């Protein structure tokens, strides 16, 4: 099926920790701990920048639409339609039509993170008991204060769920960002003719570990942000 020699997990771990002689670059040493850390940090950086842009755009919009109970078609529809967009096509088109580099790729990755954040912020706020909101309004809270102090805290589990989905979607797509000139961990995977089969597997291992770490950290953050009263209810 393929002439590529199969990689081994042992080989991949050796590749992560110390530079290996690649069988494809004529004995030149590739990979190693420093390179792995460099790409890992770059991958994290790209992901966080894109996530930050997505948050700034989608979170206030989703919260406000949910508060007003308007634009459900927009918030939920955008989220459903966006799932059908193939990431590979997006990254490839960005590279050809807009240009390569972090400045071009990060905003496009952010667009992938907007739908889940928008959708969950809308749904989370919209599901807050209307009686609770009326009580807050009756106590003289401004609309802004209602969103910030009543609706958002109650909606935190749903809102954070959207942010977690967005983070993972961005991180996953950042893996193919090397196609648009941004060197992430995906470089080990995309440029297999430089790093060899062990590098390929090493890239996959590092991307998977990074995704699980981010997901775990955001899950912890969600627990910290959720008020104790809400936690009691779910038990």
């Amino acid at each position: 099926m393929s002439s590529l020699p199969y990689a081994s997990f042992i080989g991949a771990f050796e590749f992560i920790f110390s530079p290996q002689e690649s069988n494809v670059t004529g004995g030149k040493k590739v990979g190693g701990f420093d390179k792995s850390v460099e790409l890992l940090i770059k991958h994290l950086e790209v992901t966080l920048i894109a996530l930050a842009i997505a948050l700034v755009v989608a979170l206030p919009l989703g919260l406000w639409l949910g508060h007003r109970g308007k634009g459900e078609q927009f918030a939920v529809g955008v989220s459903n339609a966006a799932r059908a967009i193939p990431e590979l096509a997006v990254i490839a088109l960005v590279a050809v039509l807009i240009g390569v580099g972090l400045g071009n790729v990060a905003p496009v990755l952010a667009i992938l993170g907007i739908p889940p954040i928008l959708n969950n912020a809308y749904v989370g706020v919209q599901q807050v008991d209307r009686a609770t909101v009326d009580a807050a309004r009756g106590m003289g809270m401004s609309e802004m204060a209602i969103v910030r102090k009543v609706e958002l805290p109650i909606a935190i589990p749903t809102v954070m769920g959207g942010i977690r989905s967005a983070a993972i979607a961005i991180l996953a797509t950042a893996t193919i960002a090397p196609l648009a000139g941004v060197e992430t961990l995906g470089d080990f995977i995309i440029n297999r003719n430089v790093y060899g089969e062990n590098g390929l597997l090493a890239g996959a291992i590092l991307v998977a570990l990074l995704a699980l770490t981010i997901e775990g950290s955001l899950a912890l953050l969600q627990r910290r942000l959720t008020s104790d009263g809400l936690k009691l209810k779910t038990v």
Partner: protein
Amino acid sequence: MSSPLVLAAGEVGGDFFRERNVGDLCQAQPNHLFCWEWAKDNIDRFGTPTIQHLQIVIPSILIGFVAAFALALLAHRIRWLQPPLLAATGILYTIPSIAFFFLLLPLTGLGRDTAIIVLAAYTLQIIFRNTILGLNNVPASVKDAARGMGFTSRQILWKVELPLAIPEIVAGLRVAVVSTIAIATLAVLISAGGLGTEMYGSNLNFPTAIIIAGAIVILMAFAFDSILLLIQRLTTPWRRVSQA
């Protein structure tokens, strides 16, 4: 691994970058957004990748659905299994599919089998979670009424709980199907063919092919989504009555 179908996918994976007869017009502007001339002459080349795409997507969803549905029924009966199964399928869902493809490489190699395993594993979480949610949302009073009418536990599950859970189950299935169709484009990276072949390799710098292949992916997702919505309408006639 050695079935004719998989070998065919492997062959395609090995040498799918056919010569592109780019018209003079397109050659003059390599970064031309969309070249109609080329599109008209070459639309037929998207047939095989589309069929390959379906050959990846359909088995993935069927396997994922059967597995997730079975796990959900098990976890519905044995309640304490729900948190660990949610966590386990959650981990599979979190690992980016590109990474997952290559993590399986030492075990299952290149080709369609690996793509199907990864995409099926990816759908587990969505379908499992929604099926459990749907079953848990069935009002206790309805189940009590069924029991009072003499239904056995098995009858309650198949004739009361599952029909009432159809909207949630289909909602999960729709998300799973649409995402799977989009993600299957990445199968090109492990030589499993599919519409990704028209977006990668020598096509990476050719927007026309990428746009056509991308449009086919989106249309395919839309078509599957509509079919599932129709199935939901047909299988839950009481919802239409109550909404009217």
